[in-house]
């Protein structure tokens, strides 16, 4: 059993007062805090090893290259990819999905083809597909969600009927950033694979919170961000199955991704370099590798249990508040709860909670189509990570009671 109290001490940003109260940081689905070891890895790299990677023949460049490629291997191991070459570093989930949509989509989609998405997708797993659909003449189709508050998750009974021969790709989120729903990723991929449909998973909300094994899941692409898993902003990656990556055209052109350049044409390097034009974000990639070590040091099964337990406890404690509407499943869920009140808008709640030192997020959570379907303009979201405690949920509930009283009273 990890020493959660000691883990909390690893995160310098948590130990401060906000508006006269100890910070209660419950905005982890937006970005997590970073442990000291990640911050130190980043500064140590800049202080000792900083030089541009690849092509360099001097000591620092070789050190930086080793560290960068070491980080790639570390990330590959973190999600059980077959080889480091299946890991492409990007700025994050959004850039990863845009890259796949643009590169794979331009080579594989034609008019009449269908891209299947779900109604619970974040804008980052929705808008890139709209863009490539417009460019290629492909159409979008949606797997619906079940229940007035999405308590039933995706309507899996409809999936078989929706996976028609026109469907070329099925993209879905592993864990919803709005409802906390954990989708049965392996089951969804198996159904798609049986019909030779390519699968892409948005792993932004799962990567730092649970074990992720891309080969056990059986997906073709898996995208995620470093800053949502205790690493830093500006770095993320995606996994792509080697055979698919090999057949994909470059996303951007530039240095580092070519094997030969003439005035009128060039030849591309194999993956992963083909998809990493220009100087890559090697320093942050190395910090991402350190975050993988840190999370595995705690144990991702333990993290999943910890975050899920907190979310279920929060769900239970919040459910007694008058007029609350809680989204997502009652039982098994990712590390977040999302809720709305008829009488008080999410932004008013967030502003008031901040006064109590609590960091929440309110709004549509980049999930506007789902909000419209649910008849909501937004929700308030509390999201948990390794350093959050049951006591912090009590602080949240007390604060919400005060807020409700303020808006209902006088």
């Amino acid at each position, binding site marked *: 059993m990890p020493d959660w109290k000691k883990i909390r001490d690893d995160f310098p940003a948590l130990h401060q007062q906000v508006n006269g109260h100890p910070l209660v940081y419950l905005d982890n689905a937006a970005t997590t805090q970073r442990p000291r070891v990640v911050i130190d890895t980043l500064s140590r790299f800049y202080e000792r090893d900083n030089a541009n990677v690849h092509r360099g023949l001097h000591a620092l460049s070789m050190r930086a290259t080793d560290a960068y490629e070491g980080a790639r291997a570390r990330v590959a191991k973190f999600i059980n990819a077959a080889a480091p070459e299946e890991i492409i570093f990007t700025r994050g989930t959004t850039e990863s999905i845009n890259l796949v949509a643009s590169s794979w989509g331009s080579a594989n989609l034609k008019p009449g083809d269908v891209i299947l998405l779900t109604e619970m997708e974040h804008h980052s797993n929705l808008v890139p597909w709209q863009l490539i659909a417009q460019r290629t003449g492909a159409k979008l189709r949606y797997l619906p969600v079940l229940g007035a508050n999405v308590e039933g998750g995706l309507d899996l009974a409809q999936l078989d009927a929706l996976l028609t021969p026109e469907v070329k790709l099925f993209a879905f989120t592993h864990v919803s950033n709005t409802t906390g729903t954990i989708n049965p990723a392996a089951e969804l991929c198996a159904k798609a694979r049986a019909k030779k449909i390519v699968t892409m998973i948005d792993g932004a909300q799962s990567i730092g919170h649970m074990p992720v094994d891309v080969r056990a899941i059986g997906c073709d692409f898996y995208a995620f961000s470093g800053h949502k898993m205790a690493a830093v902003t500006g770095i993320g990656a995606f996994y792509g199955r080697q055979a698919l990556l090999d057949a994909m055209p470059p996303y951007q052109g530039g240095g580092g991704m070519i094997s030969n350049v003439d005035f009128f044409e060039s030849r591309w390097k194999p993956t992963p370099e083909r998809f990493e034009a220009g100087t890559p974000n090697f320093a942050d990639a190395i910090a991402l590798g350190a975050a993988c070590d840190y999370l595995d040091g705690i144990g991702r099964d333990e993290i999943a249990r910890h975050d899920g337990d907190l979310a279920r406890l929060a769900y239970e404690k919040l459910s007694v508040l008058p007029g609350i509407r809680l989204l997502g499943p009652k039982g098994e869920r990712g590390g977040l709860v999302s809720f709305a009140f008829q009488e*008080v808008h999410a932004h008013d709640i967030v502003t008031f909670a901040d006064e109590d030192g609590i960091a929440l997020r309110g709004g549509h959570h980049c999930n506007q189509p789902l*909000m419209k379907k649910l008849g909501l303009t937004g929700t308030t979201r509390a999201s948990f990570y390794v350093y959050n405690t049951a006591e912090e949920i009590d602080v949240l509930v007390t604060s919400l009671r005060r807020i409700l009283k303020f808006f209902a009273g006088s």
Partner: protein
Amino acid sequence: MSDLSDLYQQVILDHNRRPRNRGKLPTANRVAHGDNPTCGDQCNVYLRVEGDRIAEISFDGSGCAISQASASLMTTQLKGKTAAEAGKLYEEFHHIVTTGEEPAEISDLGAFAGVHTFPARIKCATLGWHAALNALKGDPAPATTESHTD
């Protein structure tokens, strides 16, 4: 709580709880939609303009207490005003929410002075006003807080 009490003054809470002139206006001859893409707040403003004057005004939409109360209070202030007067009133209001200075003459608009210490909420307070001014101009494009410098 002092900053928050300044932000959520009684006037604002009252308008949020019991919005004035809320709902569609069947006789409207000008309509404009405003939205704040950052937070998802929405506001429709309906006007019946007679000659140069706002004869009737109403709003509907959804959003935080600040945006809803501001739109509600605005409807009470704009009724009977000319477009020029409405523009001048908006300038006063904008000055109040960005500087925190109370208006020269006693006015409920002063209740929004506390907004200035919460810069992220200024757009909430001005959303309804942008929609109303667009409606007055007969501008069919939706007012969006992103196209305004405040």
